[in-house]
């Protein structure tokens, strides 16, 4: 019974949890409900991934209406992997959230925060699950609207302007996307992605299809913060409450990258993209994003903002895989999508623990804390190594596949950029580590002598992610294995 409705339950459970959390009295109850739901969702997502990991496709018809008329949830290995990342990160962020939220957000807003969090989770899971392009837009807006509200809960007033800026740019992005969808519908008469993929090839020469493609790509480039459309991201990540930053950094942009993969490889096909300037443009923007944003990260004075710029650079790596347009490239994108969620989740959790203890994420307020909070410091070191791509961490695996994909295309420039990008990552990760451990002054050391290690409830989720970074650096069966399976379905011509 549950197995048949698995795909829908993943979306419906958090959707139902949201109003429940909102009406519960402020305190621990809303948190408990959200955590419980997020843990059941992660269980369902893992179950779903097991069902599709050998290459089957689950097709779920909403309300019993047969596709292409009804909405279809079409789950293959790619969807299932993304759903697992989103729900996994949510399930780890929520236990972490309890203490952090109490510290950062006034108590009368707690219930609403968890409600918005659940809505955001609903939206992101919905995007991952759905096979209907208009349904995707609806879920996109559910997740976006709730994330605007979540960001605006930040303590400083800049959180409000950051949320406003994100709202304007996010809405433009989403509106571009529906313009594209409308044009596709006008040409093909269908909104089902699988159906679109079948009907589009005969229309490839048509100018309307090219316009639709351009609108969809620009719309989602805004959502996933592809350089130079990333302007909203650093502010949003810096001023949002820690918990929100962790969750959004590890999931929201990743889900947008997944949609990009789906659009580029399934709905349109790479043969179509090759006849447009899009693939070269992606590569160019990614190269500029990786180099430019990594440089920018080095000069940041706030650790959260530093990691935010690093995120924009990392999104460049993910889009590189799409721009290269090969089986290896798409595999690298999916693997990096997974691994980057792990490392950014771990790093933002560690920074959040520092914020929890000293109330600031600015580097000038952090010197010497590494000695007071050894576990948090160790998490930053390992997370940082993974971000750089040192062998033995998850980051190495994804960079390895990216380099392989670039070599396969004989694109030595890209290989060089990936390597230089990693060197720049060494610089900005070192900047945090230096401040935390080596820059302690007597005055600050005296001030911080009473600072204790972060509470256990924050350390455990953080270290689960840190250990996952190491584990997936050695065992690549889940990441690479699933990604390869997913790409087979994503790119039908690859078989």
């Amino acid at each position, binding site marked *: 019974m549950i197995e048949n409705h698995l795909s829908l339950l993943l979306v419906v459970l958090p959707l139902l949890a949201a109003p429940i959390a909102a009406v519960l009295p402020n305190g621990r109850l809303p948190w408990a409900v959200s955590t419980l739901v997020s843990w059941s969702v992660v269980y369902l997502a893992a179950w779903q991934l097991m069902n599709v990991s050998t290459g089957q496709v689950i097709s779920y018809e909403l309300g019993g209406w047969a596709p292409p008329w009804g909405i279809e949830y079409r789950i293959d290995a790619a969807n299932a992997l993304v759903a697992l990342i989103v729900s996994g990160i949510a399930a780890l962020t929520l236990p972490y959230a309890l203490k952090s939220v109490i510290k950062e957000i006034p108590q009368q807003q707690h219930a609403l925060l968890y409600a918005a969090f659940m809505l955001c989770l609903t939206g992101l899971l919905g995007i991952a699950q759905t096979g209907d392009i208009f349904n995707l837009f609806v879920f996109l807006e559910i997740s976006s609207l709730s994330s605007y509200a979540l960001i605006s809960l930040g303590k400083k007033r800049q959180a*409000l302007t950051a949320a406003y800026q994100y*709202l304007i740019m996010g809405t433009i992005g989403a509106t571009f996307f*529906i313009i594209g969808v*409308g044009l596709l519908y*006008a040409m093909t008469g269908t909104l089902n992605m699988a159906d679109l993929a079948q009907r589009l090839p005969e229309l490839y020469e048509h100018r309307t299809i090219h316009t639709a493609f351009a609108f969809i790509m620009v719309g989602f480039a805004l959502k996933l913060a592809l350089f130079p459309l990333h302007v909203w991201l650093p502010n949003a990540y810096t001023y949002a409450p820690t918990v929100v930053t962790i969750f959004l950094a590890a999931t929201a942009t990743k889900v947008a990258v997944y949609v990009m993969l789906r659009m580029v490889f399934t709905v349109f096909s790479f043969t179509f993209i090759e006849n447009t300037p899009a693939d070269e443009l992606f590569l160019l923007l990614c190269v500029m994003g990786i180099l430019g944003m990594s440089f920018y990260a080095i000069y940041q004075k706030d650790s959260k903002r530093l990691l935010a710029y690093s995120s924009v650079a990392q999104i460049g790596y993910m889009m590189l895989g799409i721009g290269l347009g090969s089986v290896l490239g798409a595999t690298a994108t999916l693997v990096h999508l997974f691994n980057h969620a792990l490392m950014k989740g771990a790093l933002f959790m560690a920074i959040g623990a520092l914020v929890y203890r000293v109330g600031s994420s600015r580097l000038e307020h952090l010197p010497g804390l590494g000695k007071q909070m050894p576990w948090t410091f160790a998490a930053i070191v390992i997370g940082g190594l993974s971000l750089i791509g040192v062998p033995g961490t998850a980051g190495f695996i994804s960079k390895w596949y990216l380099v392989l994909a670039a070599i396969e295309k004989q694109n030595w420039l890209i290989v060089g950029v990936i390597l230089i990008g990693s060197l720049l990552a060494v610089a900005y990760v070192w900047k945090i580590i230096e401040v935390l451990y080596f820059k302690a002054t007597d005055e600050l050391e005296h001030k911080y002598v009473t600072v204790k290690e972060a509470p256990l409830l924050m350390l455990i989720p953080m270290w689960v992610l840190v250990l996952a970074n190491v584990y997936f650096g050695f065992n690549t069966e889940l990441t690479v294995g699933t990604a390869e399976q997913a790409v087979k379905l994503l790119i039908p011509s690859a078989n």
Partner: protein
Amino acid sequence: MDMILGHYNYWMVIIIMMAGFYTVISRGNLVKKIVGLNIFQVSVFLLYISIGNVKGGATPIIETGVDLYSNPLPHVLILTAIVVGVATTALGLALVVRIKEAYGTIEEDDIHNQDQSL
């Protein structure tokens, strides 16, 4: 001539779309930006409604003797998008109210200056 008159509604969509988009980009007043965003979205509503029209098609209500109907689906779709648009506007305006409380102004330049001077 047919190109212009025959596609009158589509030309309007483009003009409204650009007017809205330009307002969002060029205005410094946060409320005016939201007004621009609304105009921008309205153009998309019009686009969808225009797509649904079938030449010579009747209103999509089943009736004997009529066999060519306009397509009602885009209209239903855009109903969803209108709801999303309303929610976005409400949230955007709520943010503007909070920004006004926090900064005492809703002009982008003033807000930027206040943040810089910190």
